[in-house]
């Protein structure tokens, strides 16, 4: 098998990367995404790749696939006709939510409509106690009547979320059996399987999102598998998870909620890979596109992850205004700062950039699409960082005069400053707002950003990484290859992995470590089965962790465990380990309290795939394309920047800032005090002098 294929469905484009293991070549392809049936674009792409690589699918071992299907279905309300079965008396838990206001003062705030309308939210007579004991047995006759109502309503998918089902799943399973009889064509999602954790609202919300997307995901994956099979694929199709792992099609079908959106995930994995290639320990993966910037902390071999997520927010940057789900996700910081972010003077007479964005339409003023408001891209153009004649390799000429007008009218004139300084203000303000958010993100995770490297991708990332690094005290920046399709390339380097959790609530002092060890072993067996299905060997790496808290506390922290058997490790070592983790976060405020184990967690991870980033061939032509004036804030003036063609720069040619390195998808700006070189793999390395 000669090829590995990565394919990422994004909002606008569906990207492909075919990696030829024999030659080390990467073949790229982009197709317009087909929202009605996204598999059409995938098959289109495969066919056009076939023109240059005849029959490549027949020689492909694995296709790694990421999709925005789930998040789009929720945002655009295109999921299945879904019903929700709850314990009788709790049909409105989904709609009532947490009852909080997400904005203290806004009297007009709006909330998302529940994914299941009230007429399809129905109560089932049954009741469990907090310990899982049956208080009221499931009323099968009543359940059968309710299922008949769902059948009459044409329900396609059913979410089942009963109170305390995390402690006992028997009633939910019985309902699945009854649904199998009375509504055999409907998909069923049980809360005890999707999210076996206490808190009925979050569990219901997560299970409903799963149910809402399940038929769609199922038919999409069937169509895709059939289509790829018809095109000659005999290898495996693997699906990208929001956690950064990949999994078998079967698992993605059962738990689509774990596949929320893959675009940012692929980019982060690519950054992780580049970080390792460059021999860097810890870094920020930084991606800056048109609307938002995204940041993720990369520490050693691990990508930071979190369990909380919110989709379909009414206000993109207001937490509490969306639909909560709880699934493993990479711990991504999203900042309202991109090339399209609009600059304005706010009511406080301050320059504010973003989070409002001009998007792709009307776009920045310089696109000439009717957007008269100044954006970050307009500022970058006016400052000389972008070449109006070489945007997207010259495919889209930019109107610098339109940028100047917009900046003058909306920023320069009201603030009484000249247009260049106004443009610099915008460029610097967006860097500043990204730096502030990054510092907070780092501080919350106990990390000093100055000790990190910055791996910068996205269309605007390489333009802004130098300024951002300066503000963060970062001395080292790396620009990956193929920044335009970083996500799809990232898929190729993602190891197969799977996460499992088991609630086991016990004070550490009373815990039978033999039982704890046995539970971890069970999780390992279960995870290994999933791994084998995905074509991995039966001996993956296991990463164990535990959610712990002080007895009586309501919130857990996740602590990775040292490798080896818990029993061998012993109680005292665990106690010390937990205490150290706690003190790192909270100081020594609670030292007399006892620890309690709440959840045992396991991540199984397969082998790291070979790197698709191979030695590059330096393109023919002049490395130094020319020179142009661009703004240098140190000198408060435009100074001459040397302009290089990224692909023609030979390995290790020293490039001194101020300089600009251009490629089709992006432009890297290196300020004064920066030194760059391009290595054998084509990565740009920038080193920045201290102040």
């Amino acid at each position, binding site marked *: 098998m000669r090829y590995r294929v990565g394919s990422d469905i994004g909002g606008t484009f569906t990207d492909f990367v075919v990696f030829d293991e024999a030659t080390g070549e990467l073949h790229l392809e982009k197709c317009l995404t087909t929202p009605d049936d996204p598999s059409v674009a995938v098959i289109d792409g495969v066919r056009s790749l076939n023109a240059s690589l005849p029959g490549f699918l027949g020689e492909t071992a694995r296709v790694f696939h990421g999709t925005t299907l789930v998040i789009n279905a929720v945002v655009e309300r295109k999921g299945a006709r879904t019903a929700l079965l709850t314990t009788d008396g709790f049909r409105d838990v989904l*709609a009532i939510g947490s009852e909080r206001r997400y904005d203290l003062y806004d009297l007009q705030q709006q909330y998302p409509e529940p994914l299941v309308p009230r007429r399809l939210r129905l109560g089932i007579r049954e009741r469990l106690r907090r310990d899982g004991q049956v208080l009221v047995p499931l009323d099968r006759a009543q359940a059968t009547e309710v299922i008949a109502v769902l059948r009459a309503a044409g329900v396609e998918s059913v979410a089942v979320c009963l109170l305390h089902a995390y402690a006992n799943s028997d009633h939910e399973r019985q309902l699945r059996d009854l649904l199998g009889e009375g509504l055999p064509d409907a998909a069923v999602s049980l809360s005890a399987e999707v999210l076996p954790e206490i808190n009925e609202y979050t569990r219901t919300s997560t299970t409903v999102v799963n149910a809402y997307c399940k038929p769609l995901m199922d038919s999409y994956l069937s169509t895709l598998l059939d289509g790829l099979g018809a095109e000659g694929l005999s290898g495996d199709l693997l699906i990208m998870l929001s956690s950064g792992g990949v999994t078998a099609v079967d698992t993605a079908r059962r738990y689509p909620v774990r596949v929320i959106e893959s675009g940012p995930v692929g980019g982060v994995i690519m950054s992780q890979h580049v970080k390792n290639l460059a021999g860097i320990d810890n870094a920020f993966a930084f991606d800056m596109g048109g609307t938002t910037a995204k940041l993720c902390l990369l520490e050693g071999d691990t990508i930071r992850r979190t369990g909380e997520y919110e989709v379909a927010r009414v206000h993109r940057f207001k937490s509490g205004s969306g639909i909560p789900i709880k699934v493993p996700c990479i711990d991504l910081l999203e900042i309202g700062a991109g090339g399209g972010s609009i600059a304005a003077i706010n009511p406080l007479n301050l320059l504010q950039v973003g989070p409002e964005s001009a998007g792709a339409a009307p776009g920045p003023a310089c696109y000439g699409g009717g957007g008269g408001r100044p954006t970050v891209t307009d500022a970058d153009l006016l400052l000389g960082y972008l070449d109006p004649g070489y945007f997207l390799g010259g495919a889209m000429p930019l109107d610098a005069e339109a940028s100047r007008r917009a900046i003058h009218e909306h920023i320069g004139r009201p603030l009484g400053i000249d247009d260049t300084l106004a443009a610099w203000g915008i460029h610097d303000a967006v860097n500043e707002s990204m730096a502030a958010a990054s510092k907070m993100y780092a501080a919350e995770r106990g990390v000093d950003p100055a000790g990190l490297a910055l791996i910068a991708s996205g269309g605007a990332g390489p333009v802004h990484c130098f300024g951002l690094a300066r503000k963060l005290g970062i001395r080292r920046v790396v620009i990956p290859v193929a920044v335009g399709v970083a996500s799809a390339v990232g898929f190729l380097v993602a190891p197969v992995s799977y996460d499992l959790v088991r609630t086991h609530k016990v004070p550490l002092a009373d815990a039978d470590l033999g039982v704890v060890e046995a539970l971890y072993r069970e999780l390992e067996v279960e995870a290994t089965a999933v791994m084998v299905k995905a074509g991995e060997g039966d001996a993956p790496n296991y990463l164990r962790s535990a959610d712990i808290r002080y007895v*009586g*506390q309501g919130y857990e922290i996740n602590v990775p465990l040292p490798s080896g058997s818990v029993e061998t490790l012993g109680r005292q070592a665990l106690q010390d380990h937990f205490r150290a983790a706690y003190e790192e*976060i909270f100081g020594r405020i609670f030292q007399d309290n006892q620890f309690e184990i709440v959840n045992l967690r396991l991540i199984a991870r397969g082998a790291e795939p070979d790197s698709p980033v191979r030695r590059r061939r330096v393109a023919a032509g002049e490395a130094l394309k020319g020179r142009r004036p661009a703004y240098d804030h140190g000198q408060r003036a435009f100074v001459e920047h040397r302009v290089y063609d990224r692909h023609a720069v030979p390995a290790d040619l020293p490039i001194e800032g101020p300089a600009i390195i251009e490629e089709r998808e992006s432009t890297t700006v290196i300020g004064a005090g920066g030194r760059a070189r391009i290595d054998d793999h084509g990565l740009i390395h920038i080193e920045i002098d201290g102040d």
Partner: protein
Amino acid sequence: MAEGLGALELETAWSRLASIAEEADASVMRTAFSSIIRDSHDYSCAIYDGRGHLISQPGFVTPGHLGGMTAAMRTLNDHFPFATLKDGDVIITNDPWIMSGHLPDILVTAPVFWRQRLVAFAACVFHHQDIGGRLGLDNREVFEEGLQLPPSMLYRQGEPNEDLLRVIGANVRVPDLVVNDVRSQVATIHLTAGRLRGFLEEMGWDDLEAVADEIYDRTESALRRAIREIPDGIYAAEAPIETGDGDGTIMLRLALEISDGEMIADFAGSDGQVERGINCVLNYTAAYCMFAMKSIAAPFLPNNHGAMRPFTIRAPAGSILNARHPAAVVGRTSIGQFIPELVYRALAKAVPERIIADSGSMPLWWLTLSGRHGDGRPFVVGPMFSGGLGARATSDGVSCLTFPANIKNNPVEMVETDSPLLVERREYLPDSGGPGRYRGGLGQEFVLRVPDDETAPDGAIVEFLIAGRLFRQATGLQGGGDGSPGAVLLNGREIGWGQPYLLRPGDRIVYRTPGGGGYGDPSLRDRDLLAREVADGLVGEATAREVFGAGD
């Protein structure tokens, strides 16, 4: 030119200060022990400059906490002169007149030192799950309402005052929860202080004063500009408020003057303080009044010291809105949370598109259930359930939404884990929202049962509800109808709120929260939407026909 760049640096500093406040807020969730803190989020964090002026707050605070804490920072200087404070000192108080108006709210604050100077205060208020005392609104004086903590040193230069913590523990029903939650407050302000020092180091500043003054001045002038958009005048409103004591009411009166960018609220003419636990201290009155005025004038401006300057709030000493010590105050929510209603009614003619109809969630329904598990362990839980928000000029009121308080409900599964109680129902109350072109938000029915099997509690459970709107429902606006009133039924018999009840095994208690008022003529309601609501059981068929005129 310098001004332009100064503005950039200011923007950065400002957003960093906001982020630090947000981080403080988030850290509480990770350390707190009680359900009222970690689930209901009944706490507020804030950052003050070295003079005690509010500089930054997170998004999720309650108006009462914030206003009370901010007022306390002005007066703490009288008790512990700021110039005498040392690094590592931590101050604690729950004095209702100094702080937010009742004893369960405890303020913990610490001076933040940087380069040997006092540069800021980190502060947070928790509404603790218990503060001892006798539950009931028929208490006559604050002495009956629980433990009083005058401004005291909880830590002196880093050394904890363990005696004080023992005193607190000995006076409350659930000492583990309360004392550990106080420790969680200390953890929060420690974290905040560390972040503030890191921030000053990064900026290379010696203190916050210059940036603080700039923040206040800009906020103030933006707020004054916004207030000038509302026509000048004196706007009056009055309303009788239920006291929970039979059909008793208290009259509140407001004259709201808007004059050249200032708002002056005067509550002269409101009834006098009473021998019942519903009196408001002036801090609390001012907090909810300022909240309401800002929500109309400039909801999206950041809140800080500067946002308070254009507001003046007066209430006669000895009135129910400015009660004198030692009035009983525990249930001040039942009176004080109606202040926004008065403000909105007063401004109904001036800015009809900005105000909302009366809310069924006003006031907060605050329930306390206290007793012992079957094995003798004590518990105190406070399940939260809101009524419906009043309808807006262009959209329905949100069903079951906290307002004007700002807290979350606690999961049913958590209530059942923390207590022996069973929750039988949490469901919308159909037809409870006031009809209108835009409908008032629905209330809910929340039903509790005391088990009588082997999971029964040890002895009786004390039930104590502080609420409102059992007979004075939320009225509609511009032709909109009223929301339904609330109700409380013990074993099918209507009971009120404000007096404690003893619940025995087998008892069943039903809470029906009030609906919000409607906005606009119900006959103008979108017909397709109405049909969907009937199919969803949110509006009854009879109501659709008779009140909304469906089928006409």
